[in-house]
């Protein structure tokens, strides 16, 4: 083997090793973003949330069928459920007590397990881009199980049937909130890029699930 060939191989190997380092760095970056702890936020972000580790979100109610906890084992979601209503602009509201760690059930609609489309939302991220309760929702797959625990302790099992991204102005609202052909539970969070002058993201992720 000639000297020039050996030099060529050495140079090429150096380039490849550099590329491997870059590749691992890139993978590490993604992995870090996805695996960031949802329940243990950075201290400076959490500082603004009063007693986030101790406040229980479900309002006092004797109704045994109220949903109180959402669990999606496949993607590590395990969150208390708050009741949320409608904002003055007509949009579904989001959790107010622990906005970054709780999920919000749309209490103007059916309860999970009832006929119709029950809807639960959750924040994608916190100010600064830190992960919030539904950060991992983007990694859910069709067929994954979603569990809702009711106040009486009974658990309902749903399975993912569809996953869709919509621009908020084009979201099929009847499909998300008004399908009464079975017992559905639909999960919503944000996706896409942040639009500063609209104070929202470009997309919504909707995960459709059905009882059973």
């Amino acid at each position: 083997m000639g000297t020039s060939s050996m030099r060529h191989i050495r140079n090429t190997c150096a380039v490849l090793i550099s590329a491997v380092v870059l590749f691992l760095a890139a993978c590490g970056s993604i992995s870090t973003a996805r695996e960031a702890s949802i329940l243990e936020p950075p201290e400076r972000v959490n500082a603004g949330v009063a007693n986030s580790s101790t406040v229980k979100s479900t309002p006092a109610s004797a109704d045994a069928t109220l949903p109180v906890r959402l669990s999606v084992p496949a993607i590590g979601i395990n969150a208390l459920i708050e009741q949320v209503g409608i904002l003055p602009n007509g949009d579904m509201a989001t959790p107010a007590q622990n906005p970054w760690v709780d999920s919000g059930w749309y209490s103007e609609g059916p309860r999970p397990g009832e006929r119709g489309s029950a809807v639960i939302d959750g924040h994608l991220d916190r100010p600064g881009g830190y992960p919030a309760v539904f950060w991992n929702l983007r990694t859910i797959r069709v067929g994954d199980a979603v569990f809702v625990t009711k106040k009486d302790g009974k658990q309902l099992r749903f399975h993912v049937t569809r996953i869709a991204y919509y621009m908020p102005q084009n979201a099929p609202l009847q499909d998300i909130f008004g399908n009464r052909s079975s017992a559905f539970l639909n999960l919503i969070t944000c996706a896409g890029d942040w639009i500063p002058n609209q104070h929202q993201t470009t997309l919504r992720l909707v995960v459709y699930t059905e009882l059973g």
Partner: protein
Amino acid sequence: MRSKHIFMLVSRISLVIGGLALLVLLGTQAGRASAATPAYIRVIHASPAVGTADVFVDGNLLLSSFAFGSVTDYVPLPAGPHKVQIALVGKGIGASVITQTLAVQPGFVYTAAAIGSQATGLSIEVFFDNNILVAGQAKTRIYNLSPDAGSFNVSANGNTILNQINYQQASNYTSLAAGSYTFSFVASGTNTNLPLAITLAKNTVTSIFAVGMANGSPKIELVPSQVNGVPGVPSTGSDPRPLPSIDTVQSQGLALWLLSIVASLFIGAGIIFRRKAIISG
């Protein structure tokens, strides 16, 4: 020979790493495609000329014993054209008195009304509905499906809210404060005056259908149908800018670019080494 093995080895390693990087890259973008979104449609039987009926969609029985003046829930229907047939109950699809193809768009919401008398002819009239709620208010819409009543003026608690709603027309949506109302439908041309007492709940959408014959049978009546309005989707994102030091969103975007570059680099190197291996062999 030895250099050929080295080239082949480096080539294979490069292609494998490049391919893996591409798979990771594609994997992060999976699921972006929107799944099939159905249309939603409800049906009202408003044809005085057709008795209790069976409704078939694409040859399958959708509604059985569907009585005059009945309104269904909204049901999902795959987007696209559908053949709708209406036959007297028990007579079978072959005895259909209305056959019409309806094309429905994904995500849209419709009311399909079987309408018409022997004089006007029978058909299915399709309306685009909008069930998006007005926060704290009650939305109302009037549908004139009476073949012979003429044009309606509509008042609520004595205040005129709509004028000149003609046959086969639906009004615009009117937002009213939630509460109890007495509606009055007046068609002066036929001396028709129909009252309806109803409670409108907040965040609902109420349709009031005028169906039947002003002069004939079945007699004209008002059929209300109230559904929960649907809210807009929530805003569940946060401004990533206040804490720019750890901007995970941007770092993820950067990572995707790096992956793209690395994938290209390895695949390119793999091809070059494969060529060298072939030449040196």
